[in-house]
Each structure stands twice: as C-alpha cells, then as structure tokens.
C-alpha cells in the first residue's frame, strides 16, 4: 500500500497506469483526481455533523407493531447521509385511505408513505395525476399479508373448514340466511355477525367490497363498471352488508376487539393473515383461524415509496431511501415474520403455520385488482347499499362548555360527523345540560340543514345530566329498533354527571348488549377537555363494545371523523 508520502510520484504513476489500462481496453482515460490510494478511504465517515435530517413515515397502522419495534433501533444507529447529517425517523400510523387524503391535501407532509396496499397507491396517484404529478414515486414492498376472513375455529368447522374450501359465497349465503348458524346445525351461534372496515378509509374494507362485487357479478376477474351497474350486483352487496355490525377506520381496531370480546362480538371479520397469527399471542376463549376465500383474495403488499411533493427535500429523499433499505434488510424482514407478516425478501417459517391458524401454501388464487375507475365505482355502489344508521347525538351544552370556547370547536366536529353520514342515515339530536332535550329524528337526505342549524344555535348553560341523556337516547332508539340498521349513540361531554335520576350502574345495566335479538346499541363516548370523567365514559363504551375518545379543541374534528367511519 502506498501512503500519502508518495503522493507526487504516485499521481504520475496512477496517470500512467490509467493510460496503460486504456491501451489494454482500447479506450481513453481521463485524469484521476483522487489523491487517495487507500482502498478503504471511501468507507470512512466524514466528521460528525450536528444537524439531523428528519424523515416522517406515514404508514398503514396494520404494521404498527413491527414499525414500532424496528424504528428506534434505526434511530439509535445514527445512520447518516453522504454529507454526514444524521437521519432521524418519526412515524405516524394511520388508516390507508385517511393517509392518502392527508397527503393529497398537504395536511400531513410526510417524506415516506406506506399504505397497506398498492390499491391506495393506485388511487392516490390517479387523484394526484389530475394536478400533473403522481403522489408517490416507484414503490417496493415492505411485507405482505393476504386479506382473509378471520373466523372462530368452531364456526369455521361448522362451514366445513379445513377439509372444504370456503369462499366469499359461503359467508355471504350464511349472512343472507334468516336462520343464521342454525342452518348449519349450530343454533347456539345465533346470527352471523360480520365486520369489515370502512372502504374509503381502510384497505381491508375496500377489498371486502371488491370481493362482494366480484361475487355478485359471478366473476373473479375482469370486473367492469357495466357489471357494477347491474341491479343484482347492488342487491347482492346490500344483502351482505346487512350482516355487518358496524364499520370502522382501522383493521387493527377490529382485530383487537375481535380478540378481546370473542364470538359474542363478531362471528368473523375481514382482517389480515398477520392479525390471526397475532391473536395466538393473546388469550382467547377459542382460537381464530384464517379462511382464504376459494374465489380468491387480494394481497396487502405494504408498498413504500418517497412522496413526490415540494416539501420533500433532496436530503430527505436520500434519508428516506436509506430507511427503506433498512426496513428491507434481512434482520428487519425476519422480525416482520415474527409479527406474522410474510417478508418481502427471504424464506417463510414459524409462526406462519397451522399452529397459528394459517396456511403458508395459501392463497391458491387472487381476485384480479381492477382499474382505479372500477374501484371508485365500487365504492360509490357500496355507499348506496351499505347498512345505514340511526345515530343519537348527545351533546353537552352545560355552562363549562363556554370555557376556552370548547363549544365552538365541538359544534364544528359534530357538523363534520353529520356531513360524513349518508342521506339515508338519521340523527336524533339530544343537547343536554340541566334539561335533556330529545329532538325528533332527522333523516339527513331531507333535514340535514335544519339539523346543522340546531347544532349551531346551541348556547351553553346549566349542569350535566349525562346519564339521563344517554338513557333517554337509548329509549328513543329502542323504540325505532331495526336490525337492518346500525343503531348507535355518540355522546360528547366535558364534565361528569351531576344529575339524580340515573346512576352509572343503572345505566350500564340498561346498556348491556342484548345478544338474543341482536339489538346492540353501541355508545361512542368523547371525553372533552380535562374535566371529563374518563373512567365512567370508558365503562360505558366498553359495556356496549364501542370506542371511547379523549377529545380537545385541537383534535375534536378528527375524533368525530373517526367515529363517522363506524357508520
């Protein structure tokens, strides 16, 4: 090895060497500007740079456990750009549809985007291309997981699993059968209670309705807008959707509730294979198994790419690529396998096995992913044929809501909820303080403006008779009980109940899920501000298998939007 002390003669030597090599290869060579001759010199890092490059990864929440595991390790490694700046990655999990909209609107200025599926990349790029550029550049898969019907093992066995190939048509036939599980010799299972997420916000929900459309059209490929225009396809979809308990923005939420609340909550849900595997790390009354629909399913392929927007600097692009390479490296890919994902690179193994309710040799076939135009048309068809809702909106207008203008922000959130519901949905507005006012239900197709006016005209004053308001709301909904509609209560309060009519325990007794006739009224609670008694609200929502939220003027809009995805 020639050191720098030979620099001058070695430069001449190197120049001559280049000329010689040119003679051998038959081409000219230029000067070599390098004064280095140490072959390791390019791998030595430049001096540490105090500045860091921030990278925000916006990603589908399905892979949160894995991302939360591997990202701190990356940050701790002090990975650097070529110019020496340290890379720091922060991550935000979000439903795929919501993340697409957040990027398109510029509300979230992420460097990297990784939705659950390439379907959302297709949609996002198509919507962005209208303005002249794609939303995201070329993508690579991080991990894969097929969409499956997650079902309790005894129920799957009642359908013939594992010996018989089961498909969407079997589940749909069960959903439409008025005798429910009794038709399969298991009256004790009751009716089929099915769940999938909201297709505009969540990948698995979108795949569910595509599968319904394919099944309704009697196809597994070549779905067209002409198919979707056929009345029988819409009717087929409507029949399936009648078995839905509620929607939601997050597949992860469904998975967690399914595992936590057991068969009484849902018989089956459209989830990802990795969630079935994950269920085996928790205690369930009976095991879950993955049904790979025989007609085909769709892969959730978790693509990742660099966002194509002006807010992404060249340094962030470089940093983003380094983080992508890290996530796809063998060590991180093996970790993904431990979380139940099929790695993008490398072999498969445990826990992807029968002991965890899954089959690595499945799926046998896929449904063909249609064009963006057909996907959009399927969403519109679903909106017409989805299970519609009767919502009781309980709104705290006690005097404390004047503080910090909480009532102003809460009104905006409530109006956002109303605007996200369908024309066929109805809202019973119940403002309360010392008095509880139960207004007549308003069908949004005809009475939305009037309802919004009532919301806007509220004035905060008085005490907080919360429990009485909830009881009255429940009574009102029960009087109009319709198993073909989702019935739910959304209650916002900034304080604790100080009425005398109904105690918490009395209210909880009345709110408990009634399994036999399936009249489940779920209560979604929003504890608004610091004075809300969150424990009480949590007990109320838990008793009805719903969801509680902690709201404040900054997040109240997104809280109401998330609640809207359940309907």
């Amino acid at each position, binding site marked *: 090895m020639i050191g720098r002390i030979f620099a001058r003669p070695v430069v001449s030597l190197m120049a001559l060497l280049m000329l010689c090599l040119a003679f051998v290869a038959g081409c000219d060579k230029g000067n070599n500007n*390098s004064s280095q001759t140490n072959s390791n010199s390019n791998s030595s890092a430049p001096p540490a740079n105090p500045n860091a490059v921030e990278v925000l990864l916006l990603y589908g929440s399905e892979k949160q456990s894995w991302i939360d595991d591997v990202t701190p390790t990356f940050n701790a490694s002090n990975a650097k750009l070529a110019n020496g700046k340290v890379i720091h990655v922060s991550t935000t999990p979000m439903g795929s549809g919501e993340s697409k909209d957040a990027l398109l609107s510029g509300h979230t200025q992420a460097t990297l985007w990784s939705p659950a599926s390439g379907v959302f990349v297709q949609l996002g790029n198509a919507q962005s291309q209208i303005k002249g550029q794609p939303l995201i550049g*070329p993508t690579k898969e991080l991990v894969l997981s097929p969409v499956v019907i997650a079902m309790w093992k005894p129920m799957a066995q009642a359908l013939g699993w594992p010996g018989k190939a089961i498909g969407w048509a079997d589940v749909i036939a069960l959903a439409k059968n008025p005798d429910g599980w009794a038709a399969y010799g298991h009256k004790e299972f009751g009716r089929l209670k099915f769940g999938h997420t909201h297709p505009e916000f969540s990948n698995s929900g979108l795949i569910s309705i595509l599968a319904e459309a394919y099944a309704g059209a009697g196809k597994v490929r070549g779905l067209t807008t002409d198919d979707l225009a056929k009345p029988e396809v819409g009717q087929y979809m409507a029949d399936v959707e009648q078995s839905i308990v509620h929607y939601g923005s997050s597949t992860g939420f469904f998975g967690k509730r399914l595992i936590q609340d057991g068969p009484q909550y849902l018989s089956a849900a459209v989830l990802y294979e990795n969630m079935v595997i994950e269920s085996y790390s928790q205690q369930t009354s009976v095991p879950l198994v993955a049904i790979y629909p025989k007609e085909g399913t769709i892969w959730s392929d978790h693509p990742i790419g660099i966002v194509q927007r002006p807010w992404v600097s060249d340094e962030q692009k470089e940093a983003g690529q380094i983080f992508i390479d890290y996530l796809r490296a063998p060590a991180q890919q093996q970790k993904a396998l431990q979380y139940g994902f099929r790695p993008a690179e490398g072999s498969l193994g445990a826990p992807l096995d029968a002991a965890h309710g899954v089959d690595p040799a499945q799926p046998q076939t896929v449904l063909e992913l*249609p064009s963006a135009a057909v996907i959009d048309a399927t969403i519109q068809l679903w909106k017409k044929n989805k299970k519609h809702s009767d919502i009781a909106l309980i709104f705290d207008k006690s005097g404390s809501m004047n503080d910090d203008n909480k009532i102003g922000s809460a009104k905006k959130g409530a109006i956002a909820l109303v605007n996200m519901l369908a024309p066929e949905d109805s809202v019973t507005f119940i403002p309360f303080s010392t008095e509880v006012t139960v207004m007549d239900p308003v069908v949004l197709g005809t009475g939305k403006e009037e309802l919004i006016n009532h919301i806007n005209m509220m004035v905060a004053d008085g005490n907080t008779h919360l429990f009485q308001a909830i009881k009255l709301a429940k009574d009102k909904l029960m009087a109009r009980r319709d198993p073909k509609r989702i019935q739910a209560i959304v209650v916002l309060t900034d304080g604790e109940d100080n009425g005398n009519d109904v105690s918490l325990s009395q209210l909880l007794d009345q709110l408990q899920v009634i399994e036999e006739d399936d009249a489940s009224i779920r209560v979604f609670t929003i504890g608004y501000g610091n004075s809300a008694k969150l424990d009480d609200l949590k007990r109320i929502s838990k008793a009805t298998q719903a969801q509680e939220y902690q709201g404040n003027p900054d997040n109240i809009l997104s809280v109401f939007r998330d609640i809207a995805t359940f309907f």
Partner: protein
Amino acid sequence: MQCPHCHQENQDGAQFCRVCGKPLGAFDGGAGLIKRALVVIGLLLALLAAAGLWFVFHGNAANPAASGNQSSSAQSTSPVPASTLVKLGVAYGTEKEAWFTWAVQEFAKTPEGSGIHIDLKPMGSIEAANAIVRNDAAIQVWSPASSLYKTILLRNWKAGHADTDPLLKETILASTPMVFVMWQERYDAFVQHYQELNFRTIGQAINEPAGWKTIAEKPDWYFFKFSHTNPSQSNSGLTALVLMGYDHFGKTSGLDAGDITNPDFQTWLQSIEKNLQGAASGLVPSTGTLMTSMIQRGWSTYDCVLVYEANAIERLDQAGGRWGPLRVVYPPYNMWNDNPYYVLNVAWSSPEQRRAADAFGQFLLSPAAQRQAAAHGFRPASQLVGTGDPDSPWVKYTAVGIQRQVPGTFCDPPNPEVMENLLLAWQRSQSAK
C-alpha cells in the same frame, strides 16, 4: 460469420452465437487481452521502481502531509468532498439490480470510482429510453436488458434533436436468454395436458373457460395465470410480443409488418394479452419486479411468467423456501438479451460524467464484476469467466431446467416498424378488455 468458440455459422452482424450463446467478434477472446495485460504489468513494475528511486533522492520535504501522522490505517486520508464528486445517473433494467448494486459498492472502493457518485435508477428498459428522449437530465448512462429498443430510441431521439447521436459508446456486458418460469407442480399438470409449454399452448390455457378444472381437474387453482412485463415500458415485455410473432408464424427472421397486421395473428395476440394476469390494473413495468412478485405471491398470482434466465436463476433457491420448486423452460423461439451499456452523448452530460461513465463501464467488464454477473445468472461477456464450473448456475440448476447450451432457435431482432406495430397491436388489446 463463424463462431470462434463452437465454429458454428452465424449471420453477419450477429453479436451472440445462435448455438452456444457466446459473444461474437465484440470480444477477441482472452488471448489478446492477456498479452496486453502482461505489457502493462511490466510497465508498472518499471514505474514502481522509478517512484522508489525518486523518494530516495527527493525525500518528503515538499510534502507537508508526510510530516504528519503516518498510521498505516491511512485514517489521515479523507473522503472526497461531496461537492467535488462526479454524479452519474445510471438508468438500468431491474433484472441487473443485485449485480449493479454490488458493482456500485465495489467500484466506489477503487481509485477510479472514489470520486464518482453513482445514482442507480432502476427502470424498465423502454421507460428509460423514453426518459432519455424527453431529456431527463438525471440519466448519463443507459443499460437496458437488450439492444432491441436501440433503433427506436435513435429514431425517436432524432425526431426532436436534429442530427445528433445520443449514444457515445456501446459495450456489451453480459447475455441472458428468455425463459418461462412455472411452479413445478403446475408445470407437471400443464404438460400432462398440453405436452409442451410454448406461446401456443399458453394461449390455449389462458383462454380455457374453466381454467385448471379442465386442464388438470384442479378447480381450486381457478384460471391459468400467465404474465409478462408491460411491453411499452420493459424490454422483456416487448420481446414477448416479438417471440409470439415468431412462434405464430414459425420463423426465426424476417418478421415484417404484414405478419403483425395479419388478422389471425392479431386475434390470437389479443386473446392472450387481454387475459394476462395484471392486465386490468396494469402490467408490471420491469422484469426483476415481475420475478420478485412471483416469488412473493406464489401461485396465487402467477402460474407462469416470461422473464430473463438470470432473473430465474437468482430466485430459484428462494422460491423453495416460500412456496415450492420452480421449473425453467426455454421457449422454442428465443432471443438473446445482451445487456448493453450505453454512455450517453447528450447536452446534459459533462466530459467528467462521460469519463466516469466509461470508468464504471470498464469496471463492469473486469473479471471480478463479470464473475459477479455469472453468480447472478448472467452469461458473462468476458471470456476469462466461464460457465462450466461446478458451482456455476448452469451446472447447479440443471435439475430444474437450466441449461448451458440453450435449446431452441434464436430469432433476429425485428426492425423498428415491426416493433411499433406490435406495440400498437398490444395497446389495442388493452383497450379491448
């Protein structure tokens, strides 16, 4: 012209031998190279001696660095500042991704490569050509899978750039033929029914109304799922259309516009292309990505794909660890893909970048890089690197169908008019869905 290796006759102008696949004429074999290398080594030894003498007589007085720390670890050397690096954009087909990624890392460690920053841009071959015609200033080197699209690039370039030739230099890096890759179990069932795997039997299978239920009494397998890459973006997709043309007409040269516009051929082509797996949402734009997708998604998504032999070789082991064994079959009508390396002669390419491009190209022809190419399944251009070693892919994977001597017949690249007509026919098939 006669092949210098197997002595079989080939057409004038051919770059690879039809029989043994080795390069013709572009490389004079190892002998000339070795002679010249020996001359250089002698010169180098003489120069080293001269340098030593200079040091003895002149010492270190003029070199301030020499009075500093002289640790043998040479930590006193500093990396080239980013601002002085020559940046080189290399648009290349993803079939070479693993090989080129290795090459960039190793090249950076060499004296020639230390001042160069290579930005690898994986792109479909045609996608990259179109980007060059659109004056994409990020690209200084184009390395598609084959020179098939070169004539179209030149013609499209001249349409907007007067009389300039955008290609300064062309070097052939390595070769690879086309192959069908199929899951072994499904291949066995397929040939039991159809006897042979070729474009005609693929056409029959893809249009079988009851799919695998009829082909093999396997209703759970549903439809026969075949695919190739997007012909408007990727060389292998365009090659698929060319080979379908040759297969349909049973010839190996002279595919003309009359053949492509023949109604029977158009009907047959459409019947396959509109039923390709992925046709609705968009065919995969590059060959490496298609092969990767087959391994990731298995038989659920693809029963059979048409890719480069190198892609198949690279993924054979991984397939077994995910789904099951693969089978490789050479189409009876085939084409060589010569993986050319073009240094661009364009307005946005500086002299430094062209020299850098040349340096990297030379590195790719070095024995080490050529051995790496072979390890990744490419038949090396260098005669110093063979394909007959026991650990070479062409020996290791014979059980799954890989062969050193490629069977079948090799076809000539058609003229640009034929290729454009094929693309038009394909585009019509997509809108006819």
